[in-house]
Each structure stands twice: as C-alpha cells, then as structure tokens.
C-alpha cells in the first residue's frame, strides 16, 4: 500500500489550513470523497482537491509534497500514523497532537507542537518561534536552529535540539549529562530516515522548563562535537 500523498498543486500566496488532513479524519474515505472534502469546516470552504493532487491509499502514512511555509496546522490533533513533509511547512505543526509521528525534511514555522500531548515531531531543518509552546508531553526534535521562546509554558515533554536556543528566564540549566533513555529514543528514530539518525552519543545539556509551569519539561541540547 502506498502512502496517501498530498501534492500541493501550485505555489500559493495565502495560508492553507491542513488540520483535516490526518489519518483520523480521512480513514475509510474514498479518493473522490477526500478530494471533495472541505478543507475547513465552513460553508464556503475550498475543497482539498482545489489545492492538492491526491494519490495513494495508506491512511496511516500521509506524505505532503511540493510544500511551503503556507501549510499550517499539519498533523493537528492527530492520534496515530505517520506524516512526512517533504519540504517546509507553516505554523502549528503537530499542534494538540495526541500520538503518531511527524517528520519534516525542511523547515517549520512558529508554534511547532503547540499543546501537544503525545507523539513525536522531527524536523531536519529549522523551527520558528515558540517551538514546543504549551507542550503537555511528547517529543520534538529540531536538527537546525529554533527561534525565540522555545519551550514557552511547556509543562512536560522533551525538546531535542542541536544548538543552544535563546533561553527564557524560566528555563533552568541542569548541566551536561549522559541520559540512558536517549539510547531507546535514538533507536526508535532509526526507522524514520531523518538527520537524527546520525546521532550516536547520549551526551546532552539539559535545561528544565518552563519553571512557570512546574518545570517538568526539558530542552536537551545534543553535544554533537563529541560524536
């Protein structure tokens, strides 16, 4: 079974809300039904087929192609399956996510994983501001850089970075550590073909936060130089 693939038809200048394009919303729909499905829950909403060429049939593996930073809310509230984004994406990637995994091979905009509770988001490129904001739990990995306010108001969960972000006053440095659970986490990354597969060492700088929200979350910055 090939992955359910959404290929953006043309370069768009306005934002597109992709929150309906998850396994939860599309399972058991036929190709025609998907193409004719309203993109938004409004009366005059454009259809999915207006913007995307749709192919494939595996609802648990969704692929976005020819993407750009205008595609917002990809993976919103998803609970299962995998989404691959072959390019950049917009704001609120994986917001309120409840499970499954999202792989973005390009860059993501602001509010990655906003209010996510479970699941995994891996971004090969950069992420914008408020990465992991209001995160309840789960794992976000950004191989490139992140913008301001990473982990803003996060309660629990892990944000895995390779570069030290601009830290807020409510993020506390806990020192450099070798964390055993990273062995399991990296092993689970191996099937996902991302830049994270190259990581071999378990040495991280651990920042705890957001201390304004109990501080059970963490930003882990990988020490790549000791690989």
């Amino acid at each position, binding site marked *: 079974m090939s992955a359910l693939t959404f290929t953006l038809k043309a370069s768009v200048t306005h934002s597109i809300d992709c929150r309906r394009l998850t396994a939860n919303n599309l399972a058991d729909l036929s190709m025609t039904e998907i193409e004719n499905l309203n993109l938004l829950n409004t009366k005059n909403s454009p259809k999915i087929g207006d913007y995307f060429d749709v192919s494939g049939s595996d609802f648990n593996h969704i692929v976005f192609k020819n993407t750009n930073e205008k595609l917002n809310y990809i993976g919103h509230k998803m609970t299962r399956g995998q989404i691959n984004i072959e390019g950049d994406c917009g704001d609120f990637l994986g917001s309120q996510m409840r499970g499954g995994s999202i792989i973005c091979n390009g860059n993501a905009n602001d509010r990655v994983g906003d209010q996510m509770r479970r699941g995994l988001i891996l971004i090969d490129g950069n992420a914008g501001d408020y990465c992991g904001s209001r995160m309840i*739990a789960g794992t976000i990995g950004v191989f490139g850089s992140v913008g301001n306010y990473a982990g803003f108001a996060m309660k629990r969960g892990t944000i895995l970075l390779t570069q030290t972000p601009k830290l807020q006053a409510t993020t506390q440095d806990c020192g450099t*550590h*070798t964390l*055993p*659970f990273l*062995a*399991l*986490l990296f*092993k689970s990354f191996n099937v996902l073909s991302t830049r994270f597969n190259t990581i071999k060492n378990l040495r991280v700088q651990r920042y705890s936060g957001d201390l304004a929200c109990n501080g*059970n979350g963490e930003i882990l910055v990988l020490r790549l130089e000791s690989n």
Partner: protein
Amino acid sequence: MIINSIKIDDTFAEAFNMRGTRVIITAQNLKWAYHAANAMTGFATSVIGCGVEAGIECVLSADKTPDGRPGVSVLMFAMGSKVLMQQLETRMGQCILTCPTAAAFAGIAPKEGLEIDKISLGRHLRYFGDGFQTSKLINGIRYWRIPVMDGEFLVQETTGMVRAIGGGNFLILATSQAAALHAAETAIDAMRKIPNVIMPFPGGVVRSGSKVGSKYPKMFASTNDAFCPTLKGLVNSELSEEIESVMEIVIDGLTFEDIATSMRVGIQAICDLGEASGVKRISAGNYGGKLGPHHFKLHGIMGKTAA
C-alpha cells in the same frame, strides 16, 4: 531404563502451576548487570521460605538488549500473581533501583494468542522520583526516568506475567558426595544453555530435598529421609548400599516443554559421564502424583533421546 550404565528410574517429577515473569536488566557492563541480577535473585531459592523462586536465565549481549548495553535476563516464579507482583516490586526497588547504572526492561511482551498479564515493573517505583520522575512513550512502550544520584534510572513501566510451571526435578544418586556434585555441576552447565528455565537453588543444586509433613506438627516440610544416605537401615530407604550421596536439581520454566527439554539435557549430560563418574541412578521427586498437575516421566523424557 539404562543409559550408558546409569539406571533411570521408572518414576516422575511432580510439578505445580506457577506464575512467572521475566525482566531484562542492563548496566554499563556485564559486571554491574550481574551485581543487580544477583541481588534481585538472591534469597529466592524456594517459594516455601522466599516467596519467589528466581534465577538468571541467560546473559544478553549488547545487541540483544533494548538499550544496547550488556545485560542479563532474570526469570521469577511464584505460586500466585499477587505474591509475584509484590516480590517483583520489592526486589526492583531494593536491588535494581539501588544498583549503579542498572536499567530494567520487560522480558515478556504481549503476544497474540498468549495469555499475558501486564504487571508493574516501574509503575509504582516511579514515585521514588518525588515528583521529578518523567515518563517517555517510545514506540508505544512507556518508560520511566527516575532521577537518582548516579544520573537517571530508566525502567519500563510494565512487564508481562504468564502461567508457568515450577518444581520439575531429578535426583542424582552417586557413590560419593564429590561424584554426585560433579555430576550435578555437569548437568547444570548443560541446562544453563536452555532458554525459559531457571534452576533456583544455590549453584542450581539442592541437597536438602524435602518430603511433605513432619513429626513436628508445626513443620509442613521436612527432610526427604528416604533419600538420606545416613538413614539407610533406619527408614524405608530408596537407596541401595553403594549410594552415599544424592543431589537434586529443581527446574522452573515457562512451559512444560521447556522444563522437559532442560531435564533431558541435564540427565543426558550426566549419562554421558558414564559409569566412571560414580553416578548409579537418576530418580525424581514426587508426592504420589496427587498434589501437582504436571508429571515429568523420566522414561518418557529420556525415551526421546534413547530412541
């Protein structure tokens, strides 16, 4: 039945239903995995006095463990699920949580068509973290990270509990204590290679086989006088004149076949030593067949080899 000049008695070992679980313990190196596992399986020879019977099943190389570190696999058996759960938690808390660099993972995963209950491995242990514990759900499996003084203690939330069998056994009757022990050691070396079983007694061997009941009303088990060489002539002894020492090997396993295989391998290893080893007979312990539902008939088990 005689194999290589050693007589195999026409009798059977009587075994009981138990509950069993497996835990994978890893550490920075095998030395510390052993320290953890030895502590966890310490004082766990017999359910009569220890609550559980536990032992190290095998050593796992780094590529066979969940976290890529060397480890050992521990099997634990009890007469009921409640005791097993309670003993597992206590031993996890006192022996694995405390052991430097050790981590613990489930050794029995849910499988279709198999009756497996999930029991707590780190689910309650996490409260040791006093609010600083965090969980991580990786590939659908929940792990707990508990901050401890050497770094972080990583433990899987649950492991599997299955129906198992305990009390498979055989007796080695030899002309001297040294001969009986050497034969027992030889058998244990061979049996340690069989998966899904443990021999819970010290070094895998027990010298104080017991019978049910006693002349003392408060004792519910006492020495197996029929197999005590110094009581020949005093009691209705099972031993002929030349037998001077008897050793027993007790086996707990996940299935009937596992125990039968390990008994066959163990007995065969002794028979391979031949007459010169001083071993004269192999027998087995039972209670007349009325107590335990599982009967391991020695002739049936060894018949497969002889044939």
